[in-house]
């Protein structure tokens, strides 16, 4: 299991927390919570070691469109980048519902 952290700039407050997904094979869970300040922090725990660059690419793309000041915990059981992107978008959708 590998732990990875990323920070991204944020512009607005997040109103509501959201929890989506499950730590099942090829899937992941995302816990998105409001955070203080103008930064979004992402904490990843993944069962697939050695994919830091891939995580960065997926998150760079996600944060190109998302500017919420959130603390995002990702517990991953080997999800593909597409699944990660969908779960992140789902978490945002739930938190803004």
């Amino acid at each position, binding site marked *: 299991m590998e732990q990875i952290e990323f920070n991204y700039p944020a512009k607005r407050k997040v109103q509501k927390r959201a929890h989506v997904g499950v730590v099942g094979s090829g899937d992941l869970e995302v816990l998105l919570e409001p955070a203080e300040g103008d930064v979004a922090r992402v904490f990843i725990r993944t069962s697939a070691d050695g994919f830091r660059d891939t995580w960065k690419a997926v998150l760079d793309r996600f944060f190109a469109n998302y500017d919420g000041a959130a603390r995002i915990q990702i517990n991953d*059981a080997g999800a593909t980048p597409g699944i990660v992107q969908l779960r992140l978008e789902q978490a945002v959708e739930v938190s803004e519902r």
Partner: protein
Amino acid sequence: MSDKGYNANFINRQSFIELDARERATALFDAGTSRELLGPFDRVESPWLPMQGVTPQADDGCVVMKGKITGQAAVVVALEGAFQGGSTGEVSGEKMTAALDLACADNEKGIPTSAVILLETGGVRLQEANLGLAAIAELMASILVLRKHAPVICLTAGTVGCFGGMSLAAGLASYVVMTREARLGMNGPEVIEQENGVEEFDSSDRALIWAIHGGEQRYATGLADALVDDDTPQVADAIRRFVSKGVPPAHRSSQVTLYRDRIEKLDTSRQWDPKEFRALWANGSNEEKR
């Protein structure tokens, strides 16, 4: 089949099996009455999995909810079959046990509180072996105390099913509800094949597995009390029915003489086939006939 060329009842069915543990638990309560206890944001997760390189889940795969079913207080504990096969670790086991103990305390204070346990599990989590075993023992003790006051209803919807030590917990429940897709048994097919050889049990033979462990057979032989379709309203309806029914006059696991006699009379010198066995145990002890 309708004139549209498909079975509308099937297409429009709200599958229960497709729901995750949290959605399953919520679906059983009277609308808007449920709240989650020790949810994912409380982050009470397994300390043992990360040490072994396994990613933990924020709720340890165990969802505990309190609310009302048919207007009466109830607690629902749902295991998430997709996380580590719904296996019971130290934390998930303790969450289940604590929930049932609190329900028991409420009953003793005069607040009737039923419990529903949604078991989708292979049993003990091997990474937490001894703690998982202890947790199941504690859970069984808690079921035995609670079931004197209020019904403890076990629901196994599938597709993981309920195996290992948790099948013993299911055996202690006041009522067992299953779907055709669900399986219930002590040893799973792979375990039997590994221990006794493929001639004893071929774990690749799905028809054989469901003929023995499947919900339909368990119901027909009196080891489950209701057989429901994979349909959320139907599942919730069965749970409401058993909550209303209250504590059964005799629990299945108390009918020692009945089952001892049945097992003694069974001719084990020959191989029984699931259909014959169903005929033999047909006048079973499921709730409708009890």
